[in-house]
């Protein structure tokens, strides 16, 4: 029948379009430029670096006229998967040392330097519907708690913090394990959940939409951010300029302003 045929066409078209879109996203943009006078630098950066790296990209273009920085922000695990799948980029800046080491072991990433640290904080909606004032309330008041899935960095850090606080998962009312830290934050800012664990930098970026609830420093899990040049980069020199900028007093001041901690001294 006629409709049936149309249906088939539509389905085929959907599959083709979906496939093409999938291909497009995996082979991300990169510069062909071997020109030293200018070009485009592609930076793979953890989603939590969005604010800082966007600001520094402007500084970079001012310092090196003719050069433009394209930041590819994504979850660190997604970035690592993209690089492993052959995505061409110049710099890799992640929210966990684990993925850097993973890429280094496959010879995809050069030596790295740690440039920042991040810590966790409990956030609640500004109206604090469950009345959370201390981390003890997570157990005593059984608020709807949202955390990151243990397979993503924020989730594994949350697991560490909970273990350090002596809280078992079975004592909590966990309603969702999210795919990234931004999803955790969205559940709090929209009031869908009562409490969540996010990076301090995300809590600050949400402004007065959320309130922070502190827990003992001793229980803190520190996320270390490494940065390095990708082996496949065709702009190794410019990539090093970017890393120098991030490590410079200018770069460090921007990171500090947004809530990041100084890199570990070692």
């Amino acid at each position, binding site marked *: *029948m006629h409709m049936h045929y*149309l249906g088939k066409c539509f389905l085929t078209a959907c599959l083709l379009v979906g496939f093409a879109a999938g291909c497009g996203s995996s082979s991300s943009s990169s510069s062909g430029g071997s020109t030293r006078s200018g070009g485009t630098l592609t930076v793979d950066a953890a989603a939590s670096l969005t604010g800082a790296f966007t600001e520094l990209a402007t500084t970079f273009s001012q310092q090196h006229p003719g050069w433009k920085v394209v930041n590819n922000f994504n979850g660190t695990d997604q970035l690592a998967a993209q690089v492993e799948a052959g995505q061409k980029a110049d710099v890799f800046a992640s929210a966990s040392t684990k993925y850097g080491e993973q890429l280094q072991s496959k010879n995809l990433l050069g030596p790295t330097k740690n440039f920042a640290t991040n810590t966790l904080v409990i956030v609640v909606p500004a109206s604090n519907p469950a009345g959370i004032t201390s981390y003890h309330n997570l157990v005593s008041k059984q608020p709807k708690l949202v955390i990151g899935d243990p*397979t993503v960095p924020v989730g594994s850090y949350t697991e560490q913090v909970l273990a350090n606080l002596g809280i078992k998962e079975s004592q909590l009312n966990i309603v969702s394990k999210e795919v990234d830290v931004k999803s955790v934050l969205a559940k709090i800012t929209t009031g869908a959940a009562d409490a969540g664990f996010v990076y301090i930098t995300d809590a600050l970026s949400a402004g007065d939409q959320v309130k922070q609830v502190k827990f003992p420093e001793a229980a803190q899990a520190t996320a270390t951010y490494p940065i390095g040049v990708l082996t496949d980069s065709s702009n190794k020199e410019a990539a090093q300029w970017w890393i120098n900028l991030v490590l410079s007093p200018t770069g460090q001041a921007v990171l500090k302003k947004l809530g990041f901690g100084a890199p570990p001294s070692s």
Partner: protein
Amino acid sequence: MIAIFTQGSLRNGLQQPGAWTALKISFETSTISLALMILFGTPISFVLATTSFPGKTLLTTLFELPLVLPPAVAGLGLLMAFGRFGLLGSQLSALGIELPFTKAAVVMAMTFVASPLYVRQAIAAFGSVDPDLLAASRTLGAGPAKTFFRVAVPVALSGLSAGAALGWARALGEFGATILFAGSLQGRTETAPIAIYLGLEQGLDQALALGALLITVSAIVLVSVKLLARGNALRFMPG
């Protein structure tokens, strides 16, 4: 798609502990979602296809809008409507209903995003039913309900089935609206697409394996629906 099969191992995917749970939830929720689409979408499509009234174009556009909306926007919209601070949130919580983070939320996200595919197809299917056929049925004494069930639906069935298959497939693949509105918890709201996304961390292999599994099962269901539709279409073919 071929790449997913050559690079991943199906057996490996089946051995992943969360894989079956996620698949089960995906099938459960997408099937309920399909049932809702058919239940409400079929009569609405029939009315939109066979009558004309002021504001019809506007109404049709409204039904089609989720098709072009980014799923993240759809999820945010659902949260803004049904979440605790949402438009209907206070009324719902007064009734003791909290939708976010439940299976019902997964079904709602799927239905919202996937139903336009079914409705569009159903409108086209009903639109191609010969109006004389419907008029004849009415002249012969059948009421509107009887005409709908005994004439319009059987004649349009092949188009309706194709629409249902598309709608179901879209619901099965739903990710963006689900993650925002329903979150993800293994055994409750973690669907197969979310498990695939999270599986990326454990290594590409696991994600590829689950992806291959999802493609296989979807293909089997789509083919069965098509075969079923062809059989029915032959049986009800007028003349």
